[in-house]
């Protein structure tokens, strides 16, 4: 028998964790002499109170969905992919090369080609750690972290020495051709005669991210490859017994994982900045770990967790803008959310389990 009903496991536990994190954040805000209620109000109105706020929240969430899915897929194979940051950065390079050097007349054509470029570069960056893990047993956590630094250094070199337009002082690529610009959601709304989220970066990539969630669910729970990934994640001796090659599945899972991380570049590089800039990923690769953890490695959970972190990002920006609460505090709040939903998960879960058990006992009696 399961210890508690599924809804309590999937919804109630993270919800209580988040509330606890917010409660402690409130104490921190009180301690620095600010009003937590005002802070919360600023965050909520700033992130969710207008279509403008939503535009940013959804934009950030789109990034986090991709990096969250990346961590999630690898996690099902029991691989901890910390390298989303580097893989997303390399995805950006893939997008930039495709858009700068291929003649792509329309965004509808540019989008699939850029997606292939982004996913291929992200996957390629994940391939080397995956191969080292599968063949040589080099721990993937260590290698993917190292590859984050290598990616950052490589992009630095490429941007400064190769992609930077002649005469520019800015370590960034040239702007992508106008024809390849992705429609923003605000443009789509305008075609239906609505005004929604003007001057916000959220673009059609958001719909791709939602579709990616669904496809990931299919992949993990409905395909043979997903089955084999889950088997390997649970038991390597079991995989061998069933004739599943750990080498093949490790590499495939990491390729898919790196591909998702790379796809994030469609949102931030192609959709938002429309050129490749230095440090374009801005930590979203690491947020993906928290998103996957909090989403309990389920695509729907990843989607919800990505929305929460999108809200925290946007709300935090608003907090810094309108109050005297320092910007750093939002990092504290994010850290608390990660701490409670990830590391301290059992602290909430165990009392809940005990509560449900005693409730069931009483029900049986």
């Amino acid at each position, binding site marked *: *028998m*399961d210890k508690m009903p599924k809804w309590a496991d999937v919804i109630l536990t993270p919800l209580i964790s988040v509330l606890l994190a917010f409660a402690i954040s409130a104490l921190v805000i009180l301690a620095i002499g600010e009003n937590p209620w005002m802070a919360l109000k600023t965050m909520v109105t700033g992130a969710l109170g207008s279509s403008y706020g939503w535009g940013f929240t959804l934009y950030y969430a789109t990034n986090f969905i991709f990096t969250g899915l990346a961590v999630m897929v690898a996690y099902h194979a029991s691989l901890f992919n910390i390298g989303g940051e580097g893989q997303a950065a390399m995805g950006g390079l893939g997008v930039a090369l495709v858009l700068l050097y291929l003649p792509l007349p329309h965004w509808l054509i540019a989008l699939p080609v850029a997606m292939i470029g982004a996913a291929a570069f992200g996957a390629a960056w994940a391939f080397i750690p995956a191969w080292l893990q599968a063949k040589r047993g080099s721990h993937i956590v260590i290698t993917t972290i190292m590859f984050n630094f290598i990616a950052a250094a490589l992009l630095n070199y490429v941007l400064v020495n190769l992609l930077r337009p002649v005469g520019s002082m800015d370590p960034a690529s040239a702007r992508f051709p106008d024809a390849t610009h992705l429609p923003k959601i605000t443009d789509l709304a305008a075609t239906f005669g609505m005004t929604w989220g003007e001057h916000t970066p959220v673009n059609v990539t958001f719909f791709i991210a939602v579709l990616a969630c669904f496809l990931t669910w*299919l992949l993990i729970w*409905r*395909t*043979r490859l997903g*089955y*084999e990934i*889950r*088997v390997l994640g*649970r*038991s390597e*001796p*079991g995989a*061998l*017994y*069933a*004739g*599943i*090659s750990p080498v093949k599945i490790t590499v495939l899972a990491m390729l898919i994982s790196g591909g998702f991380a790379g796809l994030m570049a469609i949102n931030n590089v192609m959709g938002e900045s429309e050129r490749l800039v230095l440090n374009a990923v801005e930590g979203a690769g690491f947020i993906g770990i928290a998103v996957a953890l909090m989403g309990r490695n389920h695509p729907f959970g990843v989607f919800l967790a990505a929305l929460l972190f999108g809200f925290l990002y946007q709300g935090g920006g608003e907090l810094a803008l309108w109050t005297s609460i320092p910007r750093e505090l939002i990092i504290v709040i994010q850290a608390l959310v990660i701490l409670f939903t990830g590391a301290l998960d059992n602290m909430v879960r165990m009392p809940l389990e005990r509560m449900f*058990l005693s409730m*069931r*006992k009483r029900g049986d009696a």
Partner: protein
Amino acid sequence: MAEPAQHLGGRSATAAPAAIELTGISKAFGPVQANKDIDLRVERGTIHGIIGENGAGKSTLMSILYGFYKPDSGTIEVNGQPLSITDSMTAIRAGIGMVFQHFKLVQNFTVLENIILGAEDGRLLRPALAKARGVLRRLAEEYQLNVDPDERIEELSVGHQQRVEILKALYRQADILILDEPTGVLTPAEADHLFRILEGLKAEGKTIILITHKLREIMEITDNVSVMRRGEMVASVRTAETSPEELAELMVGRKVLLNVEKGPASPGAPVLEVRGLKMVDDEGVERLRGIDFDIRAGEILGIAGVSGNGQTQLLELLGGYPEKGSTVSGTIHMNGEPLDVTGTRSDARTRRKRGIGHVPEDRQTEGLIMDFTAWENIAFGYHDKPEYQRGWLMDNDAIRRDAQKYMEDFDCRPRNCHLAARNFSGGNQQKLVVAREIERNPDLLLIGQPTRGVDIGAIEFIHKRIVELRDAGKAILLVSVELDEILSLSDRIAVMFDGRIMGERLPSETTTGELGLLMAGITDTDRHDPAEGIPPEHQYVETTPEERV
């Protein structure tokens, strides 16, 4: 059906207090009632058996007695004194010693160091070591508990390691010795030696509690026996006044067929031919040193042996997944066609396609994915079958239909294929694995430890299915450390020792004694009179087929 708890006659008349008297002991883990209102009286100077299926609550009860768990209710009296045992130190001070199923020894310490561990009596080791050496010499003389005190544990055989555990308890002046499944890891000869040690201890006035699931051991050595079923003590009887059949019925709660009903085999053409199979593991240790055997259609070949003599490696190699980094040589033919032994097509998937089913020895890490549902496990290893695919996706409905059918065929309970494998009992987990492999109708079934950790009712069922598969003309390779299982199921028995097959015997023409010698690596015996000219420590009590249970 089992009667309500029977109690030993003359209990109130005994003047001397019992060594141990438990009254109304209950212990629950969450919703699981592990012990329910247990009464147990162990007389001084007797060997008292506690028998029950896996999960009947034997180990919980003993852990309570040794202070690992605190009972929810009930009282404990030791030698007539009420005692609250809060930790194992209290238990040791009260004279209770425990020999665990999995030894608690430091592998790279010497025997002497292990014995004083936790009983150093001071900051310096030297006096304690000297004292222990003296005590050890005395104990060795008194009870034939011979072990070299300066040998490292890792150099000792399993039987000797167990002696060290017993010595540890005796060194702490244990009067009451609890042994948890002590013979699981021993050869018959070692088990026999252990029993003689226990009898010696009993003669010295020690009290021994023997926890086991083997009926034969109970009948052989105990004075009294208590039977547990589902957390309850269902009977306490004198061993002389009961029978294996009665005990089995009390354990399971219904009549059980102890002997496998099996007609003579009618072997056909060879299905599996193994020649010169060798395997060296990644540390350079030769695990298989040239194995040759055939299995014919409609025949069960049993491989007997103490675990760790290459059986696991043989099964894994035949199943298509030899240990990582090992080198393999030799040939295997399946239905006359060679199998790829070392190349890229030597994996488990290809083996299954060639008609080899495999019930692995370790069902919890290999045979099942414990977090997966029963239906997902029914597809395990067969998930790439065409009938389970629907375009790009898997046809989960088809798998669930099969799962439902297999679970009905094999009486797997609860009959809910959406439950995770870990929520089934050991016996039902094994039924899931056996169902999955047998229902695919393999030409050859590899089956390792088919009934380890499986309750008697399920054992009976699984044995029946194995024999049915044989009668359907399939070849079966059975590996088991339970000699009784090998003897009752096999049509032919091969004994493995140190990576070799020491010899093949027909079950009708051999005895546990002879097999026991082969398992210990001794071959030069007269097949028809094994007891003659054998050193006493290798002799083994003969059992007739009726007694084998």
